[in-house]
């Protein structure tokens, strides 16, 4: 703009071709403002910040490979006889959907590869979303101002599972068909509307001839569109908030330290897309995923041992397995007022997932209420420096993992040569005890790590060099830290419990008392960061340390 609007001034000439193209585009459609804002935006660099990108890139791979698959896949449930080239299924009666999936695998060049790329990246997509969320949780990145983005992330997690599940069912093979049958059983257990919902979903009785087409529509249109929308929202908020950063020298809540987007960060992030694609391609080239030709066409009579859903639905399936249907002599399924309440299905299918997602969505507000911390946080917590939060997270994670393991109880039994029933009994116990143990152990480990940090900050790093003093004592020489490394260990907040405060009317109400108790629970066990005064006190020793190295005979502390 500037070049044309002021014709008399000497024109600014771009140095590179890229610069000239930028100039050309801007003169016609504008947009230089955006580039000015983003071109040198700073992004902090840490390996654990890359999981969001892994998720984004696997989604792009999913769109690319998925589009290819739609060209060959036919979501019809009409009966046909297989005429493709896989002999163990020749002339077998099956649905068109299954037959076209087989054709993709055996008769379309590169089709099998694309199917495997699609499925592996789907598993990777949900896995990286999950790991990304774990990272955000354990580092406290969900705190103000990022609560809403955390919620969007949670919605993305649910959508990614929905996308995965609708896709899992499409080939209409025996494994996914039995998966659908389980879903149908769960839906039928819903009080009042269950049977209606099932009939509407399947277009009548299970399996009907409608479900694959309907899931296909959801899988290729609605769910990806919603995911895309959420990703746009998510990234928009990332831009508004700028990225968080780990604590360290030069980093505070008022700045962001890292590499500018152009060129370094853009190159790394862009290159990373190709790396993720390459890794997925390796998996797809060398490792079978979802061998539908093994499972055969869906038929309500057969079933295969080891019938499981993909990993992200595993925890629900595991919960279904863990729930006893009869406790003592009491049937968990009850008939009240002439209607059936199928608690043995309803409870495990809804309650654990309900708890996990409710806590997930509300956690930022719960913690904000307990801590009364209404400040903006851009510097992350190292997990050890928030022991209670870390312990809560680990308790939830272990709970999830117990259910997850239960989904593979039969494989645990066969591979470790133990009784299937015993595996279930143990996992039932762990379902209740596991999170408690995880909470306690994690908190202790976090506190111990904090103590270790203190120790290192005050007395230096163990060098492994053992020195013998003239009077015979052996000590290990400790090397002092430089101030940058030390700041990394001491530069964190260690809030103490916040006692109950009277409200506007000068009254301490019940809710506030409860909050104070929770605050006590949250912060009572803590290890405060080392202070300069303590360091100075410890330095007295260090002085002698150095003397020790010089051969002085004075006794010093020996760690």
């Amino acid at each position, binding site marked *: 703009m500037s070049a044309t609007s002021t014709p008399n001034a000497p024109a600014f000439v771009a140095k590179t071709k890229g610069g000239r193209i930028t100039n050309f585009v801007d003169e016609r459609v504008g947009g230089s403002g955006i580039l000015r804002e983003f071109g040198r935006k700073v992004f902090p660099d840490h390996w654990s910040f890359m999981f969001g990108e892994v998720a984004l890139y696997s989604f792009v791979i999913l769109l690319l490979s998925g589009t290819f698959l739609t060209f060959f896949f036919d979501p019809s449930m009409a009966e046909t006889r297989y005429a493709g080239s896989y002999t*163990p299924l020749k002339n077998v009666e099956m649905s068109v959907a299954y037959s076209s999936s087989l054709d993709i695998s055996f008769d379309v060049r590169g089709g099998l590869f694309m199917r495997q790329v699609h499925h592996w990246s789907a*598993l*990777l997509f949900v896995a990286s979303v999950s790991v990304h969320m774990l990272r955000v949780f354990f580092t406290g990145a969900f705190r103000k101002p990022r609560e809403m983005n955390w919620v969007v992330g949670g919605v993305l997690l649910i959508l990614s599972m929905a996308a995965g599940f609708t896709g899992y069912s499409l080939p209409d093979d025996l*494994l996914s068909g039995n998966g659908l049958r389980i879903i149908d059983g769960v839906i039928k257990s819903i009080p009042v509307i269950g049977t209606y919902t099932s009939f509407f979903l399947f277009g009548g009785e299970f399996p009907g001839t409608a479900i694959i087409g309907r899931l296909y529509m959801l899988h290729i249109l609605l769910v990806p569109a919603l995911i895309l929308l959420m990703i746009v929202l998510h990234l928009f908020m990332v831009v508004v908030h700028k990225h968080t950063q780990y604590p360290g020298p030069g980093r505070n809540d008022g700045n962001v330290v890292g590499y500018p987007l152009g060129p370094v960060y853009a190159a790394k992030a862009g290159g990373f897309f190709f790396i993720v694609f390459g890794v997925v391609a390796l998996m797809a080239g060398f490792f079978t*995923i979802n*061998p539908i030709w*093994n499972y*055969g066409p869906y038929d309500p009579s057969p079933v295969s041992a080891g019938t499981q859903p993909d*990993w992200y639905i595993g925890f629900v399936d595991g919960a279904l397995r863990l729930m006893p249907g009869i406790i003592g002599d009491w049937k968990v399924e009850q008939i009240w007022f002439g209607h059936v309440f199928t608690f043995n299905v309803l409870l495990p299918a809804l309650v654990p997932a309900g708890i996990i997602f409710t806590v997930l969505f509300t956690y930022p507000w719960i913690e904000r209420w307990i801590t009364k911390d209404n400040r903006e946080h851009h510097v992350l917590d190292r997990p050890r420096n928030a022991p209670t939060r870390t312990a809560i997270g680990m308790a939830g994670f272990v709970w999830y993992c117990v259910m997850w393991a239960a989904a593979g109880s039969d494989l645990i039994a066969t591979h470790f040569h133990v009784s299937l029933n015993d595996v279930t009994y143990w996992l039932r116990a762990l379902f209740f005890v596991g999170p408690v143990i995880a909470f306690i152990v994690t908190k202790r480990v976090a506190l111990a790590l904090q103590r270790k940090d203190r120790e290192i900050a005050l007395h230096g790093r163990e060098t492994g060099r053992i020195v013998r003093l003239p009077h015979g004592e052996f000590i290990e020489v400790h090397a002092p830290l430089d101030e940058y490394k030390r700041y990394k260990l001491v530069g964190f907040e260690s809030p103490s419990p916040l006692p109950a405060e009277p409200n506007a009317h000068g009254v301490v109400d019940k809710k506030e008392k409860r909050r104070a108790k929770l605050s006590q629970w949250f912060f009572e066990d803590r290890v405060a960061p080392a202070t300069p005064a303590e360091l100075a006190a410890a330095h007295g020793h260090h002085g002698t340390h150095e003397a020790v190295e010089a051969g002085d005979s004075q006794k010093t502390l020996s760690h």
Partner: protein
Amino acid sequence: MKALSQKRRHPLAAIALLLMGLLVSGGLYAVATTVNQAKATTSFSANDAEEGGKLFAANCATCHGMGASGSKDGPSLVGVGAAAVDFQVGTGRMPMQMNGPQAYKKPAQFNDEQTHQLSAYVASLGPGPSIPEAGVLDEKGDAANGGELFRTNCAMCHNAAAAGGALTRGKFAPALADVSGKHIYEAMVTGPQNMPVFSDANIGPEGKRDIITFLKQIEANGSPGGADLGALGPVSEGLFVWIAGLGVIIAFTIWLTSRTS
């Protein structure tokens, strides 16, 4: 002769010789094995039964009782037939290492001839399923039909890809790779341990031949998609993506965000 001796020095001569040697030994082996098979299905001589009886008294009677009439430690074997003995002894399941939920497959304790004699002895005690004829074991049946029969009758325990599966209280259905067609056939007709019996009235000999054809075909084919991760389904796939997939990607992220020296 001169021509031959000259050609002997030809660089390909060694290879030709090697090929000839392989062909001859392979051919001899093939003949030998067919002879062996033929022997396995021929009827038993009185001598076989007698020798088998001695072996039985020495090795099996502790549990199965004298005259194979059974004891509290082992069932009666009257009427189980030669197929049951050939399966149990031939796969090393019998004699059992220890009492447990299930007899494990292990290296066979008796050689082919002894197994043959034991089978002869048990077969002489009462009528039962006999060792299958070679005709149903030729692996030339209809694999597609075999696959359908396998999925309906076998896959729920043995897994759709015959990778095995769990049963109640420590029992399991074994994987079927590397199990000979003969043993698969014998297992079907005799129903060893907790496996139900699939008599010829249930699945005819043709159907059994198809099943064996199917199993041998998928075993020989392998997975078109690469390593099959144990053919255990979504659990092994999930573990793989979490450990190997994410593991490799994390290694890349660490490299990517580290500083070069």
